[in-house]
C-alpha cells in the first residue's frame, strides 16, 4: 500500500502498475485529504462559508469535495465568499487586510500541512488578530496505518510510507508499527523511479523475511525529520481522536488546537452546527466492492443513486458493479 495520495497520483499518471509483475498489486492508501475528510466537517465548512461576513479560505482541491448535499463551489455560487489560497499565510494576510470580516482557513491534511497551519495560528496569536480562525481536520498517518493493519480484512503486506510526511516527522514513529505487525515500511518519494525503488526495497525485505523501516527518499527525508517544524505542531496542536471518511473513528489519530489557541478554533467560534443529516452515508460501496452485498441490497440503489446522480464510485464508471446492475438487471 502506498500511503500518500501524491504517490497514488504518480502511479496512475505514469501507469506504473502495468510495469509490475502480476504478483504485486498496489492498494491505494488513506493519504488523500479529499478522501478522508469526514462529511460532518465538510458540512460545517459549508455552513461557516455561507455565513455573511465570513471569508472562507481553502486549498483549491477541497472545493469540489461533496458534503451531505452540496460542495463549496455551490456555496460560492450562492454568494458565499469562498477563496482559493495556496498557503495558510495567504489567509492570514486576508485577515490583516479585512479586519471587519471573519477569516476562516480550512486546515486539512496530514503532518505535511500541519506545521504551516500551526505557524499561521501562532502568528495570528502573536499579532493579536481576532478575526482569524481555522477549521481543523488534521489527521496523522501512523494511527491510520495501525487501523488498517489491525483490520480483520487487511491484505497489505508492505507499505510505501509518505515521503513528505516523513520529511517532517522522521522515521522513528514507524519502527514500532513495523515491529508489531511484522511489515516492511519504506519511506518513498513521488517520482516514478522513487516508487519503483520503494517497491523493490519492500519486495526484497519480504523475500528476506525482514520487516524494517527503510528510507528510499534520503535526498529529502532525514531520520530525525524536521524538529523545528514538529516543534511548531506541538506548540499549537494536541493529539485528538478523529473520524476518517472510509475508516471510521480512530482514537488519537488527528490534531486539534490546544487550549492556548482555542480562540482560533472555528468550530468553537461558529458552533454549534446543525445536526448532521445521515443520508449521505447511504452508499455501501465498500461492501459491494468486496462482494459482501449485492447492489440491489443497497437502499439507495436505483432510487437516490443512479448513473446520472451517483452516490458512490460503483455507480459512476461504466464498469462499476452498480452501474452494470442498473443497466442490465433492473426490474
Amino acid at each position, binding site marked *: 500500500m502506498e500511503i500518500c495520495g501524491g504517490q497514488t497520483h504518480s502511479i496512475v499518471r505514469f501507469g506504473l502498475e502495468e510495469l509490475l509483475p502480476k504478483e504485486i498489486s498496489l492498494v491505494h492508501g*488513506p493519504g488523500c485529504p479529499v478522501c478522508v475528510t469526514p462529511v460532518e466537517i465538510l458540512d460545517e465548512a459549508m455552513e461557516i462559508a455561507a455565513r455573511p461576513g465570513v471569508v472562507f479560505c481553502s486549498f483549491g482541491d477541497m472545493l469540489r469535495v461533496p458534503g451531505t448535499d452540496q460542495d463549496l463551489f455551490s456555496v460560492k455560487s450562492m454568494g458565499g465568499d469562498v477563496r482559493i489560497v495556496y498557503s495558510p499565510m495567504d489567509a492570514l494576510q486576508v485577515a490583516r487586510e479585512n479586519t471587519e470580516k471573519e477569516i476562516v482557513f480550512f486546515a486539512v491534511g496530514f503532518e505535511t500541512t500541519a506545521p504551516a497551519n500551526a505557524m499561521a495560528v501562532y502568528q495570528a496569536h502573536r499579532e493579536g488578530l481576532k478575526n482569524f480562525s481555522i477549521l481543523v481536520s488534521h489527521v496523522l498517518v501512523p494511527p491510520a496505518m495501525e487501523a488498517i493493519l489491525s483490520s480483520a480484512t487487511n491484505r497489505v503486506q508492505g507499505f510505501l510510507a509518505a515521503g513528505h510526511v516523513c520529511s517532517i516527522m522522521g522515521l522513528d514513529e514507524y519502527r514500532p508499527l513495523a515491529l508489531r505487525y511484522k511489515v516492511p515500511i519504506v519511506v518513498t518519494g513521488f517520482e516514478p523511479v522513487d516508487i519503483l525503488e520503494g517497491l523493490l526495497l519492500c519486495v526484497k525485505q519480504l523475500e528476506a523475511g525482514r520487516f524494517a523501516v527503510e528510507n528510499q527518499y534520503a535526498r529529502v527525508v532525514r531520520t530525525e525529520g524536521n524538529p523545528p517544524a514538529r516543534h511548531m505542531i506541538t506548540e499549537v496542536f494536541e493529539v485528538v481522536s478523529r473520524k476518517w471518511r472510509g475508516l471510521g473513528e480512530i482514537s488519537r489519530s488527528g490534531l486539534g488546537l490546544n487550549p492556548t489557541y482555542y480562540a482560533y478554533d472555528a468550530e468553537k467560534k461558529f458552533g454549534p452546527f446543525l445536526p448532521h443529516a445521515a443520508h449521505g452515508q447511504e452508499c455501501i460501496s465498500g461492501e459491494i466492492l468486496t462482494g459482501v452485498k449485492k447492489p440491489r441490497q443497497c437502499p439507495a440503489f436505483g432510487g437516490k443513486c443512479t448513473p446520472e446522480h*451517483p452516490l458512490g464510485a460503483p455507480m459512476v464508471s461504466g464498469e462499476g458493479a452498480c452501474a452494470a446492475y442498473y443497466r442490465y438487471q433492473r426490474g
Partner: protein
Amino acid sequence: MIVRGEAMENEINLQCPVPIQGHDRIQMGHGGGGKLSQQLIESIFVPLFSNAALLARHDGAVFEAGGQRIAFSTDSYVVRPLFFPGGNIGDLAVNGTVNDLAMCGARPLALSAGFIIEEGFPMESLKKVAETMSAAASRVGVPIVTGDTKVVDKGKGDGLYINTAGIGIVECGFTVDPSRMREGDSVIVSGDLGRHGVAILAVREGLQFETVIQTDCQPLWGVVQSLLKAGLEIHCLRDLTRGGLTAALNETAQTSGLSIHVEEAKIPLREDVKGACEMLGLDPLGVANEGRFILFLPAHQAEKAMEIMRRDSAGAGATMIGRVGKERPGLVTIQSLVGVERILDMPSGEQLPRIC
C-alpha cells in the same frame, strides 16, 4: 489503542467521494472549457440553437454567402488581471478571435469589439487597452469595423470585459474541421505549452521565478496561411485555449469519432512552466495557451508542415506529438514518460478561473 468505527467492522472503504454532478446553478467551472462547460453547452444551448454550422463543433462557424465561404466566430474576455506579463486583455480580445477564424482556414476580414466597462475604470487604462487592440489588429491587417460600449455600476463589473466577433474568408478549397481527420494523421503542436496560464497565475498569486514567464498570446493566421499556401492537405486545426492541449485533443477525438495517441516525452514544455505547474499542482497539459495550435494532417506531409511552421515565430517550436488512430473511438491516450499508456481524460471543471 484503536477504536474501530462502523466502517471498520466490515472492511476498509477508502475511495475518493464522488463529486456532485448535477448543478442547478452556474459554477465557475462551467466557464472553464472542460467537462462542465461541455455539459452546459450540450444541455442548454445545443438543443435550442441546433443547426448544421453549430453541430460541426469547431472554433468558428463556416457557411456560404454570395458564393464565398465565410467563417464567423465570437469570444468574450474576462481575464483577471487585465494587464499581465507580455500583454493585456486587448491582445487576447483581438488575437483570440483572429485565431478562431484561422482555425477554420479563414483570413480575418473584419472584427467587432464590444466593451462592458465598470463605472470608475481609469480612462488611461482603457486607452492603453484600445491602443493594444489597434496594434494587434493592424499586425494581422484586420480592421475593427464596428463596436459597442456599455457602462455598468461600480462593483457590478470587474473593470473591463471585452467581446469580439470576427468574419473571415475561407482561403482553402476544403473544410478544415474534425470531420476531415483520418486514421494515420500526424498530430503537430506549434510550440511549448502552458505559458499563458502560468503567466496569469504568477501575477495573481505573486509568484516569482528566475525569469518572468510571459504569455504566448499571438496571432496564428500568418503561419496557418503559409501552411495553406504550400498546398498541404490540412485536415483539422484547433487552437489551444482554456483546458489546454488536453481539452483540444479530447474535443477533436470526440467530434471526429477517432482516437488520438500522443507521447508525453515529445510534448514541448519549458522547464520554468513545468516547475511552476508542479508547485501549483496543475497539469501543464491542461493549462491555457493563447498562441498555440494543433494541426492534423497526413503523416507523409508532417515534415514539410513542421519545416514551414518553424519559419514563422508562431510555429517556431513545431513538434510532432502523436497520431490519429481508430482503436478507441473518441478517446485520447498518452504514453507516459515511463512508457505506459493511459487515457488522457477531459479536464472536469477548470484548473484556473478567469484566464482569458
